[in-house]
């Protein structure tokens, strides 16, 4: 399966792109997804412990599975307001 990813803020700057696509044999967990993302963009390592993942506008945890056709986003801790 293919997972489309949106990147924001410093994650986007470090990766040099605001979106990417990752391939998996089956639905990955969030932890597996993060591992694949930082393999594709080693420069994200500096953020890795802080990277947050959202699926369909909700925060998800390392053990959660990423469903088919999800909108996945990855970004550092928020700093709005």
């Amino acid at each position, binding site marked *: 399966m293919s997972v489309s990813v949106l990147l924001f803020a410093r994650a986007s700057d470090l990766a040099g792109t605001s979106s990417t696509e990752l391939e998996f044999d089956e639905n990955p967990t969030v932890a597996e997804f993060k591992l694949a993302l930082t393999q594709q963009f080693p420069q994200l390592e500096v*953020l890795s412990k802080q990277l947050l993942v959202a699926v369909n506008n909700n925060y998800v945890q390392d053990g959660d599975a990423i469903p088919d056709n999800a909108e996945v*986003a990855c*970004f*550092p801790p928020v700093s*709005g307001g």
Partner: protein
Amino acid sequence: MSFNESDCWIELVDQPIDVSVVQEFVTTRSAGAVVLFLGTVREMTGERQTVALDYQAYPEMAVAKMQEIASEAKEKWPIQKVALIHRTGRLELAEASVVVGVSTPHRGDSFAAGQFLIDELKVRVPVWKRENWVDGTTEWVHPGADSGLPASESPES
């Protein structure tokens, strides 16, 4: 990006926020108290001087999370009207990046709800700010991240 019911106004905007429009929206004869909160661009963070902030959002999720926070607040307090407006793009000193407005029958609830709304917004809503320091460098503000900026000195309103 916006979400609008007659008693709830949630929006991301890329232009200056007109606070008087927010005030008019939340003021109602069923409330005796209105609290408005503005987060504004502060010049000094410790010894460091800012010239401007750039705000970026993940628009769909930001609006969804602001809506979620407003709904939670309406369960906790007798809120008559509520508004959460966040601005994106470049902001100059003293401009408002966020305006929160809430009205309730009595004042204690308006203060408590207003504080809850901005506290939760700053924790949950996917918006990020980038400092433009006076020395020409720029820096994303990421609480707890390895940004070279101690967390205790992170700009916050």
